[in-house]
């Protein structure tokens, strides 16, 4: 009877720590066939794998125990070693940690006589399986994508990097959500100052909760008002792998399939994983195309407006005729028509984003073809304007990172205004401002936009991969050598014989 009371008090204290409103399942039972030792198993429904609990915890403890455990000193040890057939089991004394573990889907064995608790990993519940990362598809690269489960995501990275120095640090953030966050970095590559800086910032966070890595990085970033993304988020384990090997730090958040890496530099947003698996020339060519595309997105509409409005003498005569022909009878100024067409494109883009793919097709037909055609026929815009807007929109899609492509699109609006009101001076001033702005940005002490001579191998072009002997200089690291120049060996062999 006394034991029963003791057990109840313990259960009640755990209950109050987990929260009275939580649906805590308390399964009381008696250990062993012959003895009369009370025990209780506590877990939260839905977070656990009930089949494991039934077959690997309750059944052995209730039916397989022949000895009288009431007389032993180290009850927990014996139970763990002899009767629980689950791999991840440990003893915990701190009742607060017990409550935290229960909330994460683990089960707790409570005994009346001791101050110790046995914590059993019975985490279960349904999760999405590993699939193609649909936002970042590739032609020739791995097709695995991160999922919402933290453990799975870490395992995806650990499978790729088997280095002993791959460090994993766990944090719990959010007063109410208690979200698990893991920082991954390679100990003898990454700069420890940046790691500490990020950890300090993460530890300082005091919020109720957050909905994913995108929100979490906004809590800690250095330039919260920057237009440019302050961290690189990806769903691809192969990208995280190469980032870790370059000395970056990855942040994984439970419940998000997007892994964030720090520190971030501008050029990262123009690199894709395929650049490295393609032929060198092809990779370099696509790289260059992307930078040209970014330039076109920002400048082309503005230059067009400037030419039409202020400097028609610069348009070759043959074009000029065609432009005048197409602009006949159009009420809107070039500036207004470009602005309105750009806005319609934004509507289509943002609208199409959340539509089911089948309706999305209808939207693109209605939006792209019908509206475009109707707009020219209704004399709202000229066909040349439409062409310019179309080119700028298509160029947007070349920028591999969605956040960066939106940022760049956003810059094109102020540039359009500058071009309209200040002409070419406005465009030059706008570009100078963008460059200056990029030069002032830093990401955890690392310049966002700075050229190092050695890094040029992998910025505008992609040199042969075997030539990239050093890690990028822009990311501080303690071990700059990535590989030795092993191809020299081939050459020597050839000429030696």
């Amino acid at each position, binding site marked *: 009877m006394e034991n029963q009371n003791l057990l109840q008090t313990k259960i009640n204290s755990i209950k109050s720590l987990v929260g009275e409103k939580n649906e805590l399942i308390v399964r009381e039972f008696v250990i062993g066939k012959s003895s009369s030792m009370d025990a209780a198993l506590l877990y939260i429904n839905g977070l656990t794998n009930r089949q494991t609990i039934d077959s690997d915890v309750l059944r052995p403890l209730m039916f397989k125990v022949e000895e009288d455990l009431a007389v032993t000193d180290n009850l927990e040890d014996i139970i763990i070693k002899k009767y629980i057939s689950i791999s991840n089991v440990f003893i915990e004394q701190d009742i607060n940690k017990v409550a935290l573990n229960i909330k994460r889907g683990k089960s707790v064995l409570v005994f009346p006589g001791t101050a110790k608790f046995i914590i059993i990993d019975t985490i279960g519940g349904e999760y999405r399986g590993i699939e193609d990362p649909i936002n970042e598809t590739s032609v020739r690269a791995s097709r695995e994508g991160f999922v919402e489960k933290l453990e799975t995501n870490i395992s995806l990275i650990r499978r790729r990097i088997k280095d002993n120095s791959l460090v994993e640090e766990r944090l719990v953030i959010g007063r109410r959500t208690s979200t698990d966050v893991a920082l991954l970095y390679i100990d003898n590559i990454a700069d420890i100052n940046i790691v500490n800086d990020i950890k300090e910032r993460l530890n300082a966070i005091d919020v109720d909760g957050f909905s994913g890595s995108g929100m979490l990085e906004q809590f800690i970033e250095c330039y919260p008002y920057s237009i440019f993304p302050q961290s690189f988020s990806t769903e691809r384990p192969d990208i995280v792998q190469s980032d870790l090997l370059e000395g970056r730090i990855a942040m994984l958040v439970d419940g998000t399939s997007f892994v964030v890496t720090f520190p971030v530099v501008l050029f990262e947003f123009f690199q894709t994983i395929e650049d490295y698996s393609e032929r060198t020339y092809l990779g370099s060519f696509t790289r260059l195309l992307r930078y040209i595309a970014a330039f076109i997105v920002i400048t082309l509409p503005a230059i067009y407006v400037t030419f039409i409005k202020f400097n028609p003498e*610069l348009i070759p005569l043959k074009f000029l005729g065609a432009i005048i022909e197409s602009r006949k009878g159009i009420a809107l100024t070039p500036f207004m028509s470009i602005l309105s067409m750009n806005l319609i494109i934004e509507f289509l883009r943002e609208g199409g984003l959340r539509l089911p793919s089948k309706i999305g097709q209808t939207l693109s037909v209605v939006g792209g073809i019908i509206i475009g055609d109707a707009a020219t026929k209704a004399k709202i815009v000229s066909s040349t304007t439409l062409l310019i807007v179309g080119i700028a929109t298509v160029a947007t899609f070349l920028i591999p990172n969605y956040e960066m492509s939106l940022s760049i699109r956003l810059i094109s609006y102020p540039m359009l205004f500058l071009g309209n009101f200040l*002409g070419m*001076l406005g465009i030059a*001033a706008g570009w100078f401002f963008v460059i*200056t702005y990029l*030069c002032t940005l830093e990401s955890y002490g690392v310049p966002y936009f*700075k050229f190092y001579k050695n890094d040029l191998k992998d910025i505008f072009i992609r040199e042969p991969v075997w030539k990239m002997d050093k890690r990028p200089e822009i990311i501080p690291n303690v071990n700059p050598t990535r590989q030795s120049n092993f191809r020299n060996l081939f050459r020597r062999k050839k000429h030696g014989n």
Partner: protein
Amino acid sequence: MGTKEDNVLTESQLMCILIGSMTGIGVLSLPGDVIKISKQDGWISVFLGAVYPIYMVFIANYIRKKYPKADILDINKKIYGRFFGSIFNLIFLLSFLLAATEVAAGINNVLRIYMVPFLNRWNILTVLFLITAYAAYGGIKTIGRINEVLFYGTFIVYIIPLFAISKGNILNLKPIFGSGALNIIKGLKETVVAYAGIEVLFIIYPFAGMDINIKKCGLKSIAFTSTIYTLFTIVTILYLGIDATSIFLWPLVTVTESIMIPVINSFRYIFSSLWVMNMFRVISINYYTFSYGLNKFIKKFDRKAWVIILFPIMIILSTLYGSPTTRRDFLNMIFLPHVIYNVMLVTITAILVAFRKGDDYAKKDENSNND
């Protein structure tokens, strides 16, 4: 990350800042000024003008050896005392104010003729100083990075005028040395001014790490600048000839007009927009240096506050230069004495520094450097 504030400039950044500081607006008008005096041998004067920056680099290098962590403003205060030092510094600093405003006034003139005739000068100058103030506000790190990026990013502006070489006539350049040694020396008066801007080295060298050899850096940038200047002058003489050159206000822009590429009707447009970006960079260097120096002069306002205070002053001063010709007359009058003042100031300072060997201040500095 662990970057000390005094270690912020890399070697290439320092080089790009020096090149940017030297190649001001002067280059567009330079050929015209010098050709009036030295005729077809103008390019020799331009080339010889480089003695001024070379001398300055050597002096800067010497002073830096003695006082690695102090710029010339601090040293002047130590040597001449607070009062005289401050006055000398202020006159020294005025060259940066002058450079920033005269370049702005110059761009204003060029832009209103070649690019944006529909804007008035207040619009142009406000835009101009707004963005350069933003760059200056960012500090030396930002200035260094912009200069590096823009130097390489707009490198083509240094090449565009050279294309006109194919349309030149070699006879325009002959007879070499025909104008006589005296005229070549007289031409130096014009060309030395074109290299003004090297003085910035005396203020920014403490920002460069001790592993950076500023002598090498300075000489490289001078080599680049003098080559570009000489080539531009030669191209202008080849293409326009000496008589036509002296008619144009900006002969070099006329040279770029000669380059025709299908679709792009005139290269002038691309040249001037890229050139404008380069001028932004020049103004921001001078703007930064002046606000940085003023902060040492009046400590009450910090550097960033000075950037904001100077903003309207810069705009108003830039409007006072008037028409291109009055501006040029004024500059011809004021720049040469200023160059002479600068040479004398740094020379005397260097001599005094040499005599103050083992002085407490230097010792302290050396110690801190050894740490």
